[in-house]
């Protein structure tokens, strides 16, 4: 499946990003995250969210039964909503949509419920473990905390959930069904996943597993905000191309010649067994002969790790880069002629999809 220009012959207006909230291995408050994204990062096999970030006294009552999965989502959602407070003033809560996407969902709590079945029997497992093991649990908590009474969607996808969610938010905003959409992704590093990962991803994969939550408050394109986000546009001319993992992408697919390396270069190493084949860039994304010469490319995977919702974290990196006016993350391509620099006012996330030989993209415009 491809989202982005090629299939969407009827592009929708972009969504305005009015607020950002994030709970990540790089921190929670945005200036801290941006600062850390501009610094080198040591390789680590797992990138976890610090427990300290999840103990927020302002929401402790509402989250007293909540586990790590819910807390990451709820706190990021709360931050995104709070940052957009002025832009959301006067909007009826019935007209605020909520979309929460996750690949693996609250699987830690799910396995806890299975522990209950195996240890106590089918009839005596804990009901709260069951009710907190379903995908919709995060959306339910967020709706309750913020009194959101519009449409609520929980979705799941192992690769493209965030892109799908952005597309749906654009549908809702463009049709006038919603005045605002609080949209986010959440992924949890569970023990079962960690223990099985080395066998699921053999060959010492060149990336760390990550976790966290990224939420955005979105409005219609004329609502102002920090930037615009679009799952329907093509992206042949972007200031910053954000790649999942450099080694997924042969540079020749994007760049006519090796770019000027940035500091802390990544990329270029062969893919391990089981990794996706080189992507076939979609018509909306430059392929052979259509290049990004003179532009930047970064990856944020060394900072946030890999999750099923990579695009959410990539978008966070892109938004922070646009705010900073320079590419953050691990730079993997830079203009060969440093001056005059091309205008740096837009970015695109680009993902290769395992087994599908397709591509996904989201565009961000300042």
């Amino acid at each position, binding site marked *: *499946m*491809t*989202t982005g220009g090629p*299939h969407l*012959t*009827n592009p929708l207006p972009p969504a305005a990003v009015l607020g950002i909230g994030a709970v990540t291995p790089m921190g929670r408050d945005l200036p801290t995250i941006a600062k850390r994204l501009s610094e080198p990062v040591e390789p680590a096999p797992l990138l976890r969210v610090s427990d300290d970030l999840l103990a927020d006294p302002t929401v402790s009552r509402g989250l007293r039964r909540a586990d790590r999965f819910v807390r990451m989502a709820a706190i990021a959602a709360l931050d995104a909503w709070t940052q957009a407070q002025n832009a959301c003033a006067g909007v009826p809560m*019935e007209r605020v949509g*909520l979309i929460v996407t996750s690949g693996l*969902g609250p*699987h830690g709590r*799910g*396995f806890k*419920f*299975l*522990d209950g*079945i*195996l240890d106590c029997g*089918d*009839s*005596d*497992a*804990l*009901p709260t473990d*069951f*009710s907190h093991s*379903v*995908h*919709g*649990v995060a*959306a*339910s908590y967020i*709706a*309750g905390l*913020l009194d*959101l*009474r*519009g*449409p*609520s*969607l*929980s*979705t*799941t*996808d*192992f*690769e493209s959930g965030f892109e*799908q969610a952005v*597309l*749906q938010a654009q*549908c809702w905003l463009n*049709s*006038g*069904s*919603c005045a605002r959409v609080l949209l986010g992704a959440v992924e949890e590093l569970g023990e*079962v996943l960690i*223990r*099985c990962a080395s*066998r*699921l991803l053999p060959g010492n994969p060149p990336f760390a597993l990550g976790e966290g939550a990224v939420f955005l408050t979105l409005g219609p394109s004329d609502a102002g905000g920090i930037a615009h986000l679009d799952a*329907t546009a093509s992206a042949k001319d972007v200031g910053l191309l954000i790649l999942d993992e450099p080694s997924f992408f042969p540079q020749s697919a994007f760049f006519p010649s090796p770019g000027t390396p940035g500091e802390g270069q990544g990329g270029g190493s062969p893919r391990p067994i089981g990794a996706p084949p080189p992507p076939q860039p979609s018509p909306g994304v430059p392929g052979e002969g259509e290049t990004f010469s003179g532009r930047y490319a970064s990856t944020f995977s060394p900072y946030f790790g890999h999750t099923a919702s990579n695009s959410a974290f990539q978008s966070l990196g892109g938004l922070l880069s646009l705010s900073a006016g320079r590419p953050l993350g691990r730079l993997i391509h830079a203009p060969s002629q440093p001056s005059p620099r091309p205008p740096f006012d837009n970015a695109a996330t680009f993902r290769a999809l395992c087994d599908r030989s397709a591509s996904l993209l989201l565009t961000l415009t300042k």
Partner: protein
Amino acid sequence: MTTTGTSPVWIAGIGVVSAAGIGLPATLAAFRNSVRRPSAVLPFETSISCPTFQVTADLPVLPARYNNSRTLRLTMLAVGQALAEAGIQGFNAATRVGVAAGTTVASQLNNIPFYEAYRRIDSPPLDAIHDYLHANLAQAVGDLLQVTGPRMTIVNACSSGTDAIGVAASWIHAGLCDVAIAGGGDELNRVALAGFWSLGVSSSEPCAPFDRHRAGLNLGEGAGIVVLESDAHARRRGRKNAFQVAGFGTACDAHHLTAPHPEGRGLHAAISWALAQGQIGPAQVAFINAHGTATADNDRAEGKVLARIFGPEVRFLSTKGYTGHTLGAAGGLEAAFTILGLREGWLPASMGFENPADDIPVAPLRQRTTISGEYAMSTSLAFGGNNSAVLIRRFA
């Protein structure tokens, strides 16, 4: 929230797979004869004793990587029926086909044998994880049909199937696809059974929606699929469809993780939105296929809302007495049953209902009933406080 748009969303075909029947003729026969087939024998070992509604038909054999997902096999059976009814043999490359699918079981790694092995040994077989990773419902359906277009797997618990139809309709309204395959599928699963049992909302007897003595739900399995198409696509292939998605509304209670708002606040809003989109009043709705799980809270809240909006003479039923609660499939199945009711001009008895309940101000249909009208509605309530309503319109 409603899905607004100017482009009509036609319903070109429906597919139904449930314990009530495989396909439309078998399902109609069960409805006509008030036959239900709860099974006391479960397809897995468990200490819980309760009726379930199982699909006993042979399911399609899928390519190996997909074939261990019973949910996907149930869904593909319904997809095949719906496409056949729509007169669609295949899609050309230029046709943008979206897939919006609701599920619960297929979205979770609820595999007890795997987890038992994981707890016992260092290196448990990973087949279950590989199967799970290939079983994302919308992606798998799209891959099997080899179609390109938006895809979304919706995990809104029991309203997932209805929400999938709403999402797919919004894609067509927005011009994002020409055709959309929408609905849901779910299989019986030991973990879900234990979960609902632990919550105290399962009945050890065949379920009795809206009845005074209702004691909880029975789980079922199945799939319900509708094929939606844009007006332009229908005209291009010379297709005259008889049914439309005339309205969709969805609203969150923002009240409780597992219980509905006691006054049905979100459901009231969802129904109101759907009526507003259809530009009709409640009196124009011929009947409602209610969520009607037979749990105390759901039926009380839903009954109050139906009475409040549609009045004391509202015609409604729950088909869960025939199918059990099929979770992510329920919204797709019940939308399809709503279309069938409008098409056939009669409704089955609301199976399991005998005695009016003191706490519910309205009662469902006791017997097979002739109906006429242009509009009907299907409603869904879910864990998490989701409420959704889809309004169907019949054209002569």
